[in-house]
């Protein structure tokens, strides 16, 4: 007979494995993804020790409250104190003290994470925006050395003074260089150049135990491989040397589709044949799908017109408008959707053709154009953008299933799809990253973004929406750009225990007190 009242023992913080049936919550690893706040037993001693080493730890509610959430707005946390990064030496001292007192350190650049990865649930928040200087531009060697807290738009501004440009950066330019290198970053030229993290040639990294190390593909190779696309687990990137290029304005072309599947197939056809310098898909719902194609030179543009344009199944703006009109004319119950498309077109299209960016039919500062549009039309107070990354052959299914989830949850939404060139020489960087392990040639990513306007949604609604998108990735054996934070439970479902445990062992060796960006993926 089992006693009706089991003996009560002090609860040891839920560390005992959950004894609910072994098939409990099928497919879901039993893991706390919304972490408990660190209770800070040694906080005061830590602060005193840090101040002895000239580290300014700001503890006021105002200083900490600024960092209560990230761009995703679904995870909330508050650090005990904030340190603004000033130098690699200062960060080194901070991490050494943090190791000694076992105080968690959460590193934050632009705070553009969407699952709480850059939210501190207690401990120290290290604000990297204090290190945002461009250190050296080499116009001949086409490289730039920059501090890692710099935002991409500030880097672009500096490079333009030398008639130079970076190779590839996220459309959202208020992300930091260091944060982007840690997770991936995609651009409309990623089908040719790979993800933004592929542009890094060398890094200065402060390891979790406080050593300042220079690493690259030839120096401290293993650290370089782990830090690139490493979710900030193996060190704080303080400086980066990036490949850059000569600045060129863009020759833009838009093709319009009524079908996601056709547009994606055409996008993949262009990428396979290296038919354009830039390509991507931006949509208004799934009814107005825009395939964007662009070129750096007249020669490439001419070659496209001659060989590839006729193979595309998309239409020009007028032809697509007439077809859409015909479609809705016989579907009066969908007039509200048609009206929304029309309104959106009226607001959105002029933004891509503003006179300050379009000169002689060339688009200048493409990233500013797109980044501005992202904040104005896609972003809202919360950036809720779950994504999927798959190999080429699974991509159409991923997009269509994700699209169905968007329709289920939201009246209006948009999709952004782009290819990512898989660089064979960077395979070691890609292990346990956003690049799916089965991707050959190109990986493809799709971001699903609800247009929330002024709507207020509970975090539960948004999290349920995101989970349904992420579950598609598990089903298809894909990956995600935004691993970590509240979706850290997915990392074991995607990559399996063996690989994750191997990385966890490496992490334990590199970060004995497990203080750096804890609760992000482990």
């Amino acid at each position, binding site marked *: 007979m089992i006693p009706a009242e*089991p003996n009560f023992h002090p*609860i040891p913080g839920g560390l*005992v494995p959950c004894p609910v049936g072994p098939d409990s919550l099928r497919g879901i690893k039993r893991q706390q993804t*919304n972490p408990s706040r660190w209770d800070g037993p040694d906080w005061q001693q830590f602060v005193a020790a840090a101040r002895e080493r000239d580290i300014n730890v700001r503890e006021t509610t105002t200083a900490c409250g600024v960092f209560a959430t990230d761009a995703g707005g679904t995870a*909330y946390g508050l650090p005990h104190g904030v340190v603004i990064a000033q130098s690699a030496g200062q960060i080194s001292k901070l991490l050494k003290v943090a190791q000694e007192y076992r105080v968690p350190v959460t590193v934050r650049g632009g705070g553009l994470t969407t699952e709480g990865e850059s939210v501190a649930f207690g401990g120290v928040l290290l604000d990297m925006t204090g290190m945002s200087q461009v250190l050296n531009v080499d116009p001949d060697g086409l490289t730039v050395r920059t501090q890692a807290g710099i935002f991409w738009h500030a880097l672009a501004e500096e490079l333009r003074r030398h008639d130079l440009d970076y190779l590839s950066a996220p459309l959202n330019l208020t992300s930091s260089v260091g944060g982007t290198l840690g997770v991936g970053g995609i651009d409309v030229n990623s089908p040719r150049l790979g993800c933004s993290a592929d542009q890094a040639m060398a890094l200065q990294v402060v390891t979790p135990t406080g050593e300042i190390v220079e690493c690259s593909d030839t120096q401290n190779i293993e650290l370089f491989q782990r830090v690139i696309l490493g979710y900030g687990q193996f060190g704080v990137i303080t400086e980066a040397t990036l490949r850059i290029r000569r600045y060129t304005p863009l020759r833009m072309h838009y093709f319009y589709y009524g079908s996601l599947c056709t547009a994606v197939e055409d996008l993949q056809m262009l990428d396979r044949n290296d038919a354009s310098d830039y390509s991507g898909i931006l949509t208004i719902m799934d009814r107005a799908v825009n395939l964007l194609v662009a070129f750096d030179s007249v020669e490439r543009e001419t070659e496209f017109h001659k060989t590839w344009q006729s193979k595309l199944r998309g239409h020009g703006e007028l032809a697509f408008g007439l077809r859409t009109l015909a479609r809705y004319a016989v579907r009066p119950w969908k007039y509200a959707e048609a009206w929304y498309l029309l309104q959106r077109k009226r607001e959105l299209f002029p933004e891509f053709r503003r006179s300050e960016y379009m000169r002689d039919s060339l688009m200048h500062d493409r990233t500013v154009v797109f980044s501005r549009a992202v904040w104005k039309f896609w972003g809202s107070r919360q950036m809720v953008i779950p994504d999927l990354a798959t190999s080429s052959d699974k991509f159409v299914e991923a997009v269509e299933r994700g699209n169905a989830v968007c329709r289920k949850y939201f009246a209006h939404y948009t999709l952004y799809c782009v290819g990512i060139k898989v660089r064979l020489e960077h395979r070691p960087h890609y292990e346990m990253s956003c690049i799916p392990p089965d991707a050959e040639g190109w990986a493809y990513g799709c971001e699903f973004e609800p247009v929330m306007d002024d709507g207020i949604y*509970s975090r539960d609604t948004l999290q349920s929406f995101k989970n349904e998108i992420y579950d598609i990735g598990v089903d298809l054996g894909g990956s995600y750009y935004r691993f970590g934070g509240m979706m850290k439970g997915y990392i074991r479902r995607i990559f399996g225990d063996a690989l994750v445990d191997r990385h966890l062992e490496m992490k334990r060796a590199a970060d004995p007190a497990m203080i750096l960006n804890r609760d992000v993926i482990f």
Partner: protein
Amino acid sequence: MRNVDVVIVGASLSAAAAAKRLIDAGLETIVLERKELPRHKICSGILSPRGHRFLLENFGPLPREALHEPTSCQGVTFHFPSMVSMSMDFFGGATPHLHRKYSDQWAIQRSGAEIHDQTAFVDLQDNGDHVIVRTRKNGEPTEYRARYVIGADGPSSLVTRAIYPQYPKSIPWFFVGQKFHDIVECPLDPQYFHFWFHPGLGHYTWSHARDGRQIVGVGFKRGDNFAQKHHSVVKYLAAKHDVTLQPATDDEGCGENFGPSLVNRYVFGKGNVLITGQAAGFLNMIGEGMSCALHSGAISGEAVVEARLRNRPVQEMYRKMIASEVRRTSDQWNPLKIAFDRPHEADFPAALMALGWRDRAKVLRDMWRFVVLYKEFNWGRHIVSSALQRPLLGGYSMRRWL
């Protein structure tokens, strides 16, 4: 007088969820509990998979102490007077059988909130920019000053009574009672929660295994005789299901508010006072209130955080954010959703279709006879109206909420 950001009344699962959100966002939060923790709580303890997932993601894996034996439940079995039985597994897999005495204490501790137990809520006064909460601790009057108050104190909520004194009189009340029996013989599968759609047995009749004993429970309109109702169920189980039980060794019961989720008559508070969990009227169709208590509790905490960040009235935030949980819960009671969608966490339509057509007809006839039992509450107009609102408005009207 303690001056804090938020006072939460009650130390249940909804309180823990609310506290978790508030503490994460750095708000000073005190949880008031009338009894000494860990405290006994009358409950089946069968949590839905959605609630299990919430617990895991927010509080971590459950310690063994927080579970009864059997530790998990595979699904539900419906029994009908025509002797047709339908077993349905939960979509998400087995789900925990919570020992509420310890699971609630575990969750509230994990939330990180400061807990003041043996502190009974007495009254409150909303002064616009703050709320004064009056309590009694060990018989001595005490006061708290808070920016916001969250009432998470269950169906017979004293916080609700403090702001809407007439509310308890405006809804029908039920009594649910359960007795614990040592088992002589019980062929009912211990891995399932058993429920009877039998108008002759009562409004809500169930049985399941716990810690080597069998629980026999019955729900009925307040005022009926518990012992009599329970006796007829035990007799029925013996006659129809070959269940032989020893006389009951323990019993317990409490008042329940079954109606608000069915007729969209939730109560969410006013001014700086939010009501959440079962106090607000959240209850899933099989009488499981824990999962919606966890989610609505979390939303009440989120609403406070959002209200501060956006500098907007907390009621505005809460009502907009809680709409999703209202949809999810009221969908479970919505006849159109039940017929054409899958609002529950087990597949009733599939289990029904797995029966022969003759049994299907019997089940539908028995269910109708069971539903007719509720005729006296005059909910029909509201049920039809809510069912139609859902496809037409995409949700349920906020105008019926208090």
